[in-house]
């Protein structure tokens, strides 16, 4: 029951390769969508939809606008300069919970896929972990975190400054994944280290200059640091939780309501683009588009490696291939599953950004809109299991510390973490 696209008005001439004249739906206005994005490989589906004709096929012209900060993306979406935007998966959840400095209702009907993040430490710090704990070059993500915990304890005993670690935004997968990894190793991210925000394109330079000792960001910036020989990749997103949602397409709920057909066509276009991005034989074309100045403006070779999941862990030739490092479509990666929004909410509670209440549970889950996805793509596009499922209870999709997330037992789940903020609030209260 895929929505049948009405013939776009601008395509009568056969063989006309020009984009159709801005098609109009009588009630929805011209279908030129201004879409904000940040130059990252996980914007691939959006970029491919614009570059390889998937949007045009649905009668939509995507006007992609590169931006410099997530705060800008949020504000430009809120104040109608963007119709849709490439966003961090926690951003709509934070918006619905009223968190951040300009919360404005935001929803997502489409997830741009999984994967792409990694944690990189300075080679200096990693060498110290090897020397002081006997860590091997082939240690797991958890062993790396435990080794860092030992070094952090040693630093404290000797009165040294704690490491400064960079992430991207307070409401980001990177913030929660970095904290998850640190805490799994026994490090309190608020007391034992100093977390700061560094814009992704500056991470490699900041690491080289010693301004930070490690970071968690998306591709290609981890590989940029490792290839330069200034960083060592110690964990990938897949190691922390393979299903963790990464970026999403955000929009204003009132805009989605007044443009139902545009939203459906957009989802159909993004779905086709996501399938295309997942196929390895298209990666050369995709890499070439992404490397362009208008998009990521990074070396094409690095982008090719990133798409293939071929990691140079450091500049000494230690390599690792991560199967499905990026999943643009497979495994229902585009499905905006509300239990994922609730997992994000659980981490917001864990680190003191929000509080547990029935109302907040409802608001957090409402940021993810599988109903819009279903409306556009039909029931056959849906996963078998429910919108709210138990996360991390299957082989191949475990959390690195073995915890299992049952949204029905939110309070117990958060309480079950040994490391969490001291002012975690599990009673119903509202400090927003």
């Amino acid at each position: 029951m895929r929505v049948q696209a009405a013939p776009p008005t601008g395509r009568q001439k056969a063989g006309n390769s020009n984009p159709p004249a801005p098609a109009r739906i009588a009630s929805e206005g011209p279908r030129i969508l201004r879409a904000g994005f940040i130059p990252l490989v996980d914007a691939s589906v959006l970029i491919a939809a614009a570059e390889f004709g998937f949007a045009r096929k649905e009668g939509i012209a995507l006007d992609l606008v590169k931006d410099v900060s997530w705060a800008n993306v949020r504000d430009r979406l809120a104040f109608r300069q963007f119709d849709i935007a490439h966003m961090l998966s926690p951003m709509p959840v934070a918006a619905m919970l009223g968190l951040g400095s300009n919360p404005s209702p935001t929803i997502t009907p489409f997830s741009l896929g999984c994967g792409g993040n990694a944690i990189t430490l300075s080679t200096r710090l990693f060498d110290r972990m090897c020397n002081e704990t006997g860590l091997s070059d082939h240690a797991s993500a958890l062993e790396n975190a435990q080794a860092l915990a030992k070094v952090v304890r040693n630093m404290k005993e000797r009165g040294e400054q704690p490491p400064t670690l960079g992430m991207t935004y307070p409401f980001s997968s990177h913030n929660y994944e970095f904290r998850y990894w640190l805490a799994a190793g026994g490090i309190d991210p608020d007391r034992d280290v100093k977390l700061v925000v560094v814009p992704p394109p500056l991470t490699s330079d900041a690491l080289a200059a010693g301004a930070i000792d490690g970071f968690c960001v998306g591709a290609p910036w981890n590989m940029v640091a490792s290839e330069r020989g200034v960083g060592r990749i110690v964990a990938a997103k897949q190691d922390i939780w393979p299903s963790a949602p990464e970026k999403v397409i955000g929009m204003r709920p009132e805009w989605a309501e007044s443009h139902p057909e545009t939203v459906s066509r957009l989802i159909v276009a993004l779905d086709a683009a996501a399938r295309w991005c997942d196929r390895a034989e298209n990666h050369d074309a995709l890499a070439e588009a992404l490397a362009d100045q208008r998009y990521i403006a990074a070396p094409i070779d690095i982008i090719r490696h990133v798409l293939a999941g071929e990691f140079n862990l450091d500049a000494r030739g230690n390599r690792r291939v991560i199967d499905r490092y990026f999943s643009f479509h497979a495994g229902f990666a585009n499905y905006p599953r509300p239990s994922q929004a609730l997992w994000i909410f659980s981490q917001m509670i864990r680190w003191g950004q929000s509080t547990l209440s029935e109302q907040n549970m409802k608001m957090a889950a409402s940021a993810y809109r599988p109903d819009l996805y279903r409306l556009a793509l039909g029931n056959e596009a849906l996963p078998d299991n429910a919108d709210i499922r138990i996360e991390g209870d299957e082989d191949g999709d475990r959390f690195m510390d073995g915890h299992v997330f049952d949204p029905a037992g939110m309070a117990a789940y958060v309480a079950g973490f040994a490391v969490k903020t001291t002012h975690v609030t599990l009673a119903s209260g509202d400090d927003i």
Partner: protein
Amino acid sequence: MSRLDLTILVIDENTIRASIIEEGLREAGHARVTVIHEVQGVARTIETLRPDVIIIDLENPNRDMMEHLFQLTRTVGRPIAMFVDRSDTASIEAAVEAGVSAYIVDGLKKERVKPILDMAVSRFNAFNRLQRELAEAKSALEERKVVERAKGILMKMRGLSEDEAFALLRQTAMNEKKKMSEIAQSVVTAAGLLM
């Protein structure tokens, strides 16, 4: 505290634009204005300065770092939030459009901040206009130069007078529905290939 006792921090990597904003604030009677051009160490600046109002340009990639900082201030009793007057979306839209945003400390009345933001918006717009005009003037000058060169080439190669060379360029441009500078550029390029 009088209206003019607000402590204002301006963060703008563009030093000229920052000084234009600073001047506007001083003209409006604000004496406690601090301007910084880079965000390095901004956390400490905010801690010591304790500004009531922060004005920042939106092209600054370090805005996300400020968001993190403001998240932390939530717990320390002097929360800072983005200036958003939901009853006046037009003016905040104009600000975002102009490329500027403001943060204010919790509890500060909106009407005390609005004139500051409005002034910043109009000066940002004036600055943007000035830059655009400058760029246009530059390209007009370039166009005039290329027409002069094309004229010279035609005079030399076809033995025309200056007026005739100019008339030929203009007529060709009209015939081909192009700008005179474009025709002139092709003459210059062609001459470069032929000679």
